[in-house]
Structures are given as structure tokens and as C-alpha cells.
């Protein structure tokens, strides 16, 4: 049965009802109570939007945030001290109507210019902070915006404060012509000096960040964060579409696209932004770096069973090192470090899943961690390229090593790779060059570097993370010039003789230790899985602490010479 106008609904006369309601004028929605989301078109309660970080409660779309609101979301209450609140308006080209437009916007937004700058605390961490406001001529960068940012950066360098800039901009300010263009150079130059002084700059990209701002301060962060789905690009999508006469794909130039292409370290949801910034500031603070260690490395002498005790053939060990349920790189991060924050991308081409790197804390001190990651499930294996890094993976690792050097953090690497990725695209992007560059740079990196081979130590793909002060291996890890299969096939023209090859290659931890290429073998439990991994990390942790204490106090020169001589003798 379908109900469609089946009921008669004849009108029944209304009974007497309260006089109070007689004067009712019907429903009235007060102005400002409801808003409409431009994305999902739904009606939303305005105060909900304000309460929930300017995010649509219905569809999760991000709305633009006025600079003062952003400031309140980010900086601890009562800690903000504004710098250069009033700037004299300029009109270098004497562009008609420009001063009037600026005056009108000042009136409307209550802002003096498109950026506010100053100093404040984020969860107790002092920082200089600049926040762009898109309501002011699309936060385009004219003289005053460039000048305020430059002054802020200079003052931060002087006061040895980190800098955070929430970017958002349509680009250069057309009304100021060539003067506007020069702001790109001016701000970049100030940030270079800031960086050369060993100071941190975090740039946060919000919707939209385009043009001359992208091509200057927005892309120069030591750490680049982005809000989800923000439009970020140099040329705007409309300009590209018109020039190229083609339709751009969905998601083009959005934060996620930039992350995939290696230009963004991390996408952070707005409600978690303050927490993320605080955590980065904490890991880069001088106090964190100079923290005295209180761990007694001699506290727990661990019984180490050497590998010879177990009668396993070299080939058995090769198979064990490749076993499916063997712990992967990120498992070690989870057990050995705290506060890990993954930093993505090589800032050139892409973000390689086979390498996971970032900053973390080890016994209260900030460190850089870089691991080769195979993934745990088939789906993850594919996303991680089965632990075979591409050139962009090595370039990401290098970027993070250089970052560690700048901030004086030790570097811990985990090697577990069948070898560098082998394929056309890897050659096109210079796989050989990428590996070579890592060897060259690592050889003189001015911070301690420790590498642990936990599974397969496959050739140059492994070495690119292993030009270290010390290299350790797990009992059943392997480290070799080539896979046994490859070795057998090249020398004996028969890949099936891999087991024989394994023996001949002297690739087990015990063999490699004897050859003097590594310093230490870490024993494994009977069956090494994620469940038993803590038995290994319990040995690694104090040993790593001892490593830190051995190398931490070496001068940069001593350190580099030590590493040089380590390889010079091989």
C-alpha cells in the first residue's frame, strides 16, 4: 500500500487556547544565529562553528580563521606581545584608490595590515609568531607585510626565539608593483640568516597559500605543516587551467597533494595544531638539547648470548632476516623512542614510504630517527615498496640528517632493506646519485650517527643509511654486497645456489663482525616477532644510551675524523 493523500484531513475547528500565545508572531530566527556552510550547504549554528575551531560541524570543512582568533587558538592566554602594531601605509606606485582601500579594510577588520606579528608562548614555549589574515586584500604581501615579517624574524634571531608563521595569501600585492616582488627576497633573506644562526622556523600553510608567499617564506620552514585540504601552490589553479587549456584533477594543489609530492612535513588537523606546535617547539628548545641524562648505563648488565651458540646456517639466517613476522622499522621506533613525529617528503619530488623519519625523544633528549620500513600487511608492503627506497626516500633521509645537524641532534638509523628500489623511475631520478650523496654527506655529518641493521642489509641501499660512527647488527640480520640469489646468478649463473652463496658471502652478523665492518651483534630471542621485540630493545636501549654518552661530548672535528678513519681502514 502506498500512502499518498489517502487521508481526508478535514479541518476541525480549533479549541480555545491560552491567551498568552494569541500575540505570537511566529518563529523568527535572530540574525547571526544560523550560518550556511558553503561546502555542504547545510545550516549550522554560528556559535558551534566558533566553538569548534571554525570547522563545519556537519561536513568538517575548514572555514578561514581571522588572525586574532587564530592567535587565541594557538598562543597561551595573556602571553602575546604584539610587535609593530602600526605601520605607516605606503603607496609606492601611487596606485589610484589603493590608500582608500587599505583604510576601508583597516576599518572593517580592525587590523593594521594583513599580518600580525609578535611574541608569545605556546604551551609555555616562547616563540615569535606571525599570522596572516586573508580578509585583508587576500593577505597579499606588500611592503608592510614583508617588512613586518622581516622585522619579526630579525628580532627573533636576536632574541634567539623560534619563528612560526601561519601562512595564507593570494601572493604579491599587485598595487605595490616591484616593491611587492622584493618582499619575497627580503623575507627569504631574513629567514636564511635566522636559519644560519641555528634557529627554528615552522611554517604552517593554511587555505589558500599561493604565489609569491609560497615562493618565499611559506616554503622555507625547517618544518612545514599544513591544514587539511588547504590550497597551496605557486600558480593558482585557474591560471594553470587557462594557460594549459586543461582541467586539473581533483585534489590538485591541496595539502594532501603536497604531502605526497614531498613538500609538506605533516598535515595537522586544526584542533591538534597547538599541540603539534608545542611538541615541535619542545623538541627544538635549548633546554631539551642540554638536558643532563640521568640514565645509568651500567645499571642492568644484560646477558648476551653470541650467535655462534646457535647452529644456524647462513642461509637459515638469510631466511630469518626476511621472515614476514619479523619486526619492521616502525616497531623499533615505537619501543625505543617517545613523542615521535614523522616528517614527510624530500622537498623535491615525493614522499617515499620505504623510509620513515622524524624527530623523537630518547631518554629525554631530542633525536632524529630514520628507518627503512617494509610494512606489516600486504597492503602496507605495497605502500612501503617492500622496504626498497627510491631516490626520494634517500633524499628525505638526507634532508632529515642535515636538519639533525643544524639542531645538533644525534641520528639513529634502522636498516632493513632488500636493496634500493630497482626500476626505470628510480634511474630517471638518479638512484645512484641519491645514494652517493648520502655517503658523501654522512661522512662529514657533525652529529653522532648510529645505524642498526635489524633485518636485511642489502647493498648500497643499506649503506646509504650506514655511514655511521658505529654500525650494529641483530644476530640474524645480514649485510652484504648483494642478495645471495644475485651473487649465485652472477658468479655461478645459477640463482638456485643461493644457499651456497649465502655461506660464501660471509654475510651473517658474526661474519661481518669478524671482518671489522660492524661494532656489535645484538642477540635475538628464539623467535623474533613483534611480541618478543622488547627482549631485543631491552638490550639496545642501554647500549644506545652508552653510544650517546660516548659520542655526545666529542667535538665536531673529532667526530668527523673518527668516522673518516672508521671507513678509511676498510
Amino acid at each position, binding site marked *: *500500500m*502506498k*500512502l*499518498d*493523500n*489517502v*487521508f481526508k*484531513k478535514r*479541518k*476541525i*475547528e*480549533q*479549541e480555545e*487556547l*491560552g*491567551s*498568552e*500565545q494569541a500575540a*505570537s*508572531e*511566529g*518563529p*523568527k*530566527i*535572530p540574525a547571526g*544565529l*544560523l550560518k550556511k556552510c558553503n561546502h555542504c550547504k*547545510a*545550516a*549550522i*549554528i554560528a556559535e558551534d562553528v566558533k566553538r569548534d575551531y571554525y570547522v563545519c560541524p*556537519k561536513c568538517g570543512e575548514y572555514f578561514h580563521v581571522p588572525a586574532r582568533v587564530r592567535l587565541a587558538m594557538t598562543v597561551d592566554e595573556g602571553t602575546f606581545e604584539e610587535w609593530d602594531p602600526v605601520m605607516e601605509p605606503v603607496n609606492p606606485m601611487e596606485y589610484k584608490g589603493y590608500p582608500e582601500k587599505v583604510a576601508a579594510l583597516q576599518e572593517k577588520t580592525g587590523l593594521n595590515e594583513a599580518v600580525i606579528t609578535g611574541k608569545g608562548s605556546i604551551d609555555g614555549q616562547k616563540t615569535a609568531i606571525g599570522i596572516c589574515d586573508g580578509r585583508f586584500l587576500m593577505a597579499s604581501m606588500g611592503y608592510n607585510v614583508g617588512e613586518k615579517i622581516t622585522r619579526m624574524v630579525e628580532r627573533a634571531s636576536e632574541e634567539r626565539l623560534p619563528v612560526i608563521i601561519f601562512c595564507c595569501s593570494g601572493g604579491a600585492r599587485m598595487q605595490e608593483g616591484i616593491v611587492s616582488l622584493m618582499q619575497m627576497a627580503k623575507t627569504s633573506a631574513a629567514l636564511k640568516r635566522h636559519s644560519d644562526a641555528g634557529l627554528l622556523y615552522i611554517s604552517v600553510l593554511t587555505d589558500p597559500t599561493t604565489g609569491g608567499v609560497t615562493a618565499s617564506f611559506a616554503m622555507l620552514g625547517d618544518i612545514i605543516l599544513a591544514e587539511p585540504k588547504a590550497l597551496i601552490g605557486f600558480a593558482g589553479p585557474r591560471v594553470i587551467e587557462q594557460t594549459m587549456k586543461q582541467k586539473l584533477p581533483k585534489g590538485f594543489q591541496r595539502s594532501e597533494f603536497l604531502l605526497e609530492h614531498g613538500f609538506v612535513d605533516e598535515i595537522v588537523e586544526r584542533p591538534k595544531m597547538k599541540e603539534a606546535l608545542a611538541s615541535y617547539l619542545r623538541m627544538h628548545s635549548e633546554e631539551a638539547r642540554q638536558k643532563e641524562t640521568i640514565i645509568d648505563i651500567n645499571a642492568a648488565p644484560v646477558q648476551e648470548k653470541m650467535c655462534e651458540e646457535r647452529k644456524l646456517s647462513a642461509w637459515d639466517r638469510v631466511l630469518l632476516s626476511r621472515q614476514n613476522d619479523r619486526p619492521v622499522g616502525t616497531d623499533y621506533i615505537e619501543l625505543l623512542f617517545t613523542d615521535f613525529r614523522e616528517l614527510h617528503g624530500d622537498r623535491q619530488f615525493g614522499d617515499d614510504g620505504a623510509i620513515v623519519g622524524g624527530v623523537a625523544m630518547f631518554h629525554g633528549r631530542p633525536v632524529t630517527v630514520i628507518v627503512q620500513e617494509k610494512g606489516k600487511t600486504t597492503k602496507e608492503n605495497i605502500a612501503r615498496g617492500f622496504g626498497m627506497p627510491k631516490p626520494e626516500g634517500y633524499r628525505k633521509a638526507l634532508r632529515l640528517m642535515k636538519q639533525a645537524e643544524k639542531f645538533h641532534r644525534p641520528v639513529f638509523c634502522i636498516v632493513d632493506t632488500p636493496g634500493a628500489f630497482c626500476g626505470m623511475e628510480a634511474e630517471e631520478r638518479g638512484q645512484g646519485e641519491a645514494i652517493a650523496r648520502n655517503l658523501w654527506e654522512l661522512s662529514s655529518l657533525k652529529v653522532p650517527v648510529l645505524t642498526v641493521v635489524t633485518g636485511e642489509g642489502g647493498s648500497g641501499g643499506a649503506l646509504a643509511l650506514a655511514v655511521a660512527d658505529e654500525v650494529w647488527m641483530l644476530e640474524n640480520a645480514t649485510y652484504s654486497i648483494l642478495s645471495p640469489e644475485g651473487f649465485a646468478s652472477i658468479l655461478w649463473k645459477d640463482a638456485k645456489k643461493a644457499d651456497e652463496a649465502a655461506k660464501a658471502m660471509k654475510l651473517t652478523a658474526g661474519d661481518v663482525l669478524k671482518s671489522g665492518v660492524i661494532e656489535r651483534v645484538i642477540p635475538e630471542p628464539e623467535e623474533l616477532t613483534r611480541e618478543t621485540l622488547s627482549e631485543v630493545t631491552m638490550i639496545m636501549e642501554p647500549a644506545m644510551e652508552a653510544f650517546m654518552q660516548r659520542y655526545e661530548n666529542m667535538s665536531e672535528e673529532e667526530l668527523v675524523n673518527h668516522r673518516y678513519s672508521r671507513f678509511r681502514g676498510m
Partner: protein
Amino acid sequence: MKKILIANRGEIAVRIIRACREMGIRTVAVFSEADRNALHAELADEAICIGPAPSDKSYLDMESILSAAFVSGADAIHPGFGFLSENSRFVSLCEQCNITFIGPPAEIIDRLGDKQAARNTMMAAGVPVIPGTRQAILDTKTGAEEAAKIGYPVMIKAALGGGGKGMRSAFGPEEFEHQFLTAQREALKAFGDGTMYIEKLIQKPRHIEVQILADKYGNVVHLGERDCSIQRNHQKLIEESPGVGISDELRTKMGETAVRAARAAGYVNAGTIEFLLDKSGEFYFMEMNTRIQVEHPVTEWVTGVDLVKEQIRVAAGEKLAFSQEDILIKGHAIECRINAENPDKGFMPCPGTITALHLPGGKGIRIDSAMYSGCEIPPYYDSMIAKLIVWGKTRDEAIRKMKSALDEVIIEGVCTNVDYQYDILDHPDFAAGKTDIEFIERFSREEQ
């Protein structure tokens, strides 16, 4: 009040629309995309779609409902039960939009919704409450000390709890810590808050609630009690009025206490005060429900008062047309909730299409339902599809009538609990009035 929007669905929406029609008030139904062909949408004078099937995108979407009220020019909203009926934020939005909310004002909902605040209000008004902690308990140690003071057995309850979540009993100090931590963990998971209270566990009590009506001029009357002890996992199954073995004296005492409670809260409109009644005849305030309830028809039948119409009249500013002396309890009414669920599969909801339908009728039989032959029971909402209410001169006659009526119910296309309900009514303990809130637990064990 000329036009009322009903912010609900199913049988309660139909029930309210009928009351409005009888009063000559125009009605606006709101419906989700899954309820396009629902009876309430067809029966109302106007119907407005307010969003997709999931209730958080339709029947709980305050903005859509307010927009619908605005577009249709409704001057009042009846929230029914569930959904937004006890949402003080929605009530205050209605107030801001010059829409009369048919129910109590926002601040009263807030006052009674906060369990500890409600308890304090009641204690101040001399309404008996279950002995227990006044302060929030966050750790086991303090909890165990408090429990010892109160005396075992005790009930551990989440401050923000409901529906049995974050609730555990402890019969002695040896099991206190385990039970406390389990309850707290559950509470943290369900409500994001681990604040707990501890109170005396009343063993095998009955759930007796008193219906009250209050107008805006301070007149409060009670309409007798309902016995809702037949509950499965805190979901009521059968309700009756009056309660078995409740003497006129006890009724008067509980009723007067309920009126005092309502006055203490400054209550306006229809509301229910829930009590636990123990074997010795002592009763304790549990909570106040600030809405019309599912089981309101049993009260309507024994008192002759149309509660929904009274809600509308009170909201329109009318004075109550009767006083306490006018309320006389006559006969006995029982309600069975008929749910689309499968008792053989752990009462799993059973949505689907009603392919054939026959519902009982005759003297002393009332059906409140939004079902019709061919209608869809969507999977998104509560599984209650009908309420069967009977009236008899005595409880015995009412039980016979209910059993006879249940046998006449034919609902094809979905599984229902009709036979399960019959078995409860057929149980000698039910017939003898030996019921308490653990009845169903015992009954289920016997069934197995």
C-alpha cells in the same frame, strides 16, 4: 498556538498529530529520507524532509528542524521522546527563535539532567534519595572508604551514565576495586568522563514512577504511578498502572512526594519522577524525566487525562483544568511494547517491510503505532513499532485481555517480540504480581 511542528517520528509523532488534529491545531511533520513514506509524514498537514536517514543528520539536526519550523511558520515544537526531547540546547534555541517548546524550560532540563544537582535539589526538598556519596569519586581508595561508610552492597555509577553503561554493583570490599575500575573504564569509553558516584544497592526493587503535570502558575498534580519493573537491559518491556499492591496510602505518599519534587525543581509541563520501591515499602528518588514517556497511555487510561493535549495546553499558557481531587484511578491498564526484533537471536533488531498486518481491537484495546501494511521499518531508529495497551476493571481482567489481544496480533515481514511478551504475561509470578527489576533476568534463565 496555531501550528505545531512534531520533531519526531514513528508512533509518538502520530500520537501527537492526532492530539493536535482533535484540538484543531495544524501540524508539521519532519521526516528523514528513510521516512519519506512514513505514516506521520502523511498524516500531518505539512511534511518537510530534514535530511538523510541517520538520526544525527535528521531528527537530531537542530538547525534543520529550526529551519523547517521557520519555513512552515510553526509557532511551537513538540519533541516527543528520545531525540531532542531532553536537549536543553535545543530548547534554548527554540526560545531564541520565538518558538514555544512543548516541555519544560532549558534551565530546568539542565538542573534535572545533572544527576548530582538533581539529587541535591531532591534532598533539600525532603524527597528520599538512595544513600550515597555527594562528592564525585575519581579513585578506588576514596571509593572503597565511601562504600564502607554506606554499607555493602553498593552500586557504582558514572556521573554521566545512562542505559546501564558505567554501572556495576559490589557486594563486598573484596570485589570493590575490580568493579569500580570496570565501571570507570566503561564510563570513560562511553562518556569520556570517569567521574563516579557510589550509592547503596537496593536489592530487587521495583521501578515505580509517578506522572506529574505542572502548569506555569505553580499548580502541580500527580496522576498516580506506573510500575515499569519488567525491563530487559534497562529497556522497559511492560508497564502498568496502578502498581500491584500499592495501597491508596502509599500512592498518596509517593504522589505527594513527586509533587514536592516537581515543585522543588520549579517544574513546568508533563514529567515523570522515577522511584525505586523496596520490599519494605521504602522508596527512593532516582531521576526525573522531563518529557512525555513511551508508557504514558496507561496513565491516560486509568485517569482519563489526555497527557499530550495537557502538554500543549500548559505550553500555550493554560491553567490546569483539574486539581488533585479530580484525579481518580479507575481500573487497571497494561502496555506491551512491540519491537521489531528477534528474541531468538539475542533480540537483534529486525528491520524490513511489513507484508501483512492485523492488529486487535474492541473494548478496552488501544494501539499506538505508525505501522501500516506495506510500510518499511528502517534500520536506523528504535525498534519499537507498536504499543498495545489494554484496560480492564481489574489487573486480572487486563492480563487476560492483553493475552487475548497479543494472540490476535499478526505482523508479517519482520520478527517481533509478541510471543515473548505473551510468555511473560503467562508467567505465574507476573500474574501473582511478584515482579521486580530482576524479573526478566530470572525469566530468561528459566527460558533457557
